[in-house]
């Protein structure tokens, strides 16, 4: 059992938790993920590591309530326990040696882009963060990004936070204004990563994306997380989750990601109803 050391609601649908898992905290690196189950009958879900504190022995996860498991997780309180927490899985992002990087975060994906930006900053790289949300109410980690970015561009769909527009608009403006990057790292919805990769391809800038497909075991056994990269089948859990954005078949990944969406929505509603009943 793994104790929830700290819980913070970042916005109405996104929650941050620090989980006590000393061995995982000791090894975790940006780009890696964990798999958790909330209870004995729970589903195994992958969540990317949002931060870690090696001394306190905690790993931070940030999640949006989209299915039954994240709904249940969101109802757990500080001091309570989750059943299983395994990691760190996947390969770490390769950040050493980079001098100047544009880090792009979209929506809850910003939670995963942040530790990458932070590590790059600590390694002495120049970090330009471009972060986008639908609107002001959904913003997370604003101060954190501010602290580790040499340039911080805020974007929102409705113009209530920063500039109205897409992260790709902001990236294009920076490149056009003469900024040059060793690498662009984009983490967010698949559709966002697809368009970032399409843009950087035009300019020939190496681009890394972090894929978050459906998984069961997370150790290479089930193959549920497979995706096509450069014409070859890769397993996100062992070969990734970071991949060359210019080689990923994003359309296929989006399709595969939608496989259980009706089930997820139904299960979440059932779980919500269950919690509502308990409250009454």
């Amino acid at each position: 059992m793994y104790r929830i050391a700290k819980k913070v609601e970042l916005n109405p649908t996104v929650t941050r938790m620090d989980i006590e898992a000393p061995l995982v905290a000791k090894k975790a690196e940006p780009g890696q993920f964990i798999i958790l189950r909330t209870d004995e009958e729970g589903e195994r879900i992958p969540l990317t590591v949002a931060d870690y504190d090696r001394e306190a022995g905690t790993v931070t996860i940030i999640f949006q309530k989209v299915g039954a498991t994240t709904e249940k997780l969101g109802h757990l309180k500080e001091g309570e326990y989750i059943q299983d927490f395994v990691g760190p899985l996947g390969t770490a992002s390769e950040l050493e040696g980079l001098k100047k990087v544009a880090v792009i975060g979209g929506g809850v994906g910003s939670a995963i882009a942040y530790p990458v930006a932070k590590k790059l900053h600590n390694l002495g790289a120049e970090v330009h963060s471009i972060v986008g949300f639908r609107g002001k109410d959904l913003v997370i980690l604003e101060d954190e990004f501010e602290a580790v970015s040499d340039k911080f561009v805020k974007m929102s769909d409705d113009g209530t936070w920063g500039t109205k527009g897409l992260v790709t608009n902001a990236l294009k403006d920076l490149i056009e204004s003469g900024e040059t990057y060793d690498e662009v790292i984009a983490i967010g919805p698949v559709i966002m990563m697809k368009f970032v990769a399409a843009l950087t391809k035009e300019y020939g800038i190496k681009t890394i994306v972090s894929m978050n497909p459906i998984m069961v075991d997370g150790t290479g056994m089930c193959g549920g997380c497979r995706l096509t990269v450069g014409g070859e089948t890769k397993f996100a859990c062992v070969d990734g989750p970071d991949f060359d954005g210019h080689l990923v078949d994003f359309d296929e990944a989006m399709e595969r990601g939608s496989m259980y969406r009706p089930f997820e929505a139904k299960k979440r509603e059932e779980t919500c109803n269950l919690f509502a009943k308990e409250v009454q």
Partner: protein
Amino acid sequence: MPNMSLKKNEMPTQDPNVRNKNFKEVALGYTKEQAIDEAQRCLNCKNKKCVSGCPVNIDIPAFIHEVAEGKFEEAYQVIAKDSSLPAVCGRVCPQESQCEGQCVRGIKGDPVGIGRLERFVADYHNANNTEKAVKPESNGHKVAVIGSGPSGLTCAGDLAKMGYEVTIFEALHLAGGVLVYGIPEFRLPKSIVQKEIDGLKDLGVKVETNMVIGKVLSIDELKEEYGFEAVFIGSGAGLPKFMNIPGENLKGVYSANEFLTRVNLMKSYKEDSDTPIKQNKRVAVVGGGNVAMDAARSALRLGAEEVYIIYRRSREELPARAEEVEHAEEEGIIFKFLTNPVEILADENKFAGGIKCVEMELGEPDASGRRRPIVKEGSEFEIPVDCVIMALGTSPNPLIKSTTRGLETQKWGGIIVEEETGLTSREGIYAGGDAVTGAATVILAMGAGKTAAAAIDEYIKKQ
């Protein structure tokens, strides 16, 4: 006077049309009377060919003799000398190519039902034995076992009995390896596996779940920082193989590992499970091994109306256990022999909608000794399906190799070991089971676990 009936006592089973809708065990097991009657068919031959057919050399005539006398617990003690998991092996061993394949009674008529008797004896013991195993006095030496499948459980059990402090590290949230994630409930009830694991815990074995060795800790760290004097790697098979044909990444295409893990480990066949599985009407399973049979029969039990097994050779070459093939046929699985998929076709929602296949014919034997299938020109045809399950075997997981310095592996990824001991290229590190051999059987993995346990004991004593 031996029982000279040419036929084995039939195994009582659930009716095929009932069992193909539930996940309860198919075979119900012999009664005492049936067991004694079957045991009396054994001629107690002098040269005991059955024993040489058993990968762990159980003294088969001796245990059968006890059964014939009605001494079931004594029979169990005979088996227990050589096998740690009789309730499991009695159910999943391919007896027809091992012990029973050698039985003289098989020359004219059926061989003695050795597997069924082993299962009977183990179940009798489990139901009647109330004595808990006692933790032996510790010899103070620590051994780590990676993986809790058949090889790991066996190695851990043998070492614990000798007084070693054994810790098993399991990657998943539940111990048992392929016995819990792979083999379905209707063939191997999970309560039996749990009983074996509880037995190990009584012997003092510690089981640490959620520990992916190679990630959270490396084998070198286990040895250098955690004080384990020897390590046994029983990490099992690994990455599922695909055919690399168009359409394999469509929705509704699973590896058998994923399909079976969702069903067995995550219990997605239960209404209230949080882990989803797609509801399918027409399912094609590609492959001819036990895993293919398990996947096909699970799909049927989940409510599919038509389930096909697509296999590129003929019935004779099917690598699955004979009993599983018979059970599958009885339950209504449709076999498409000499058939090979060339493409998975999409429906309008990008789910699998059909499978395009070609007919095959058998040519000359290949390196495996089996006749090589050759494509018949112009034989393409389509089967409409909404789900495809690939059961083509696995290749070893690279995680341990890539994180253990100096651990040598074959080109295809299997860990290289000395056959007599299970010793790898690294001192104090042993390996066995599918991680060494590639996908094989429970009993071979168990045998490798035993061999390594004996070698580890010898190694530590020498230090």
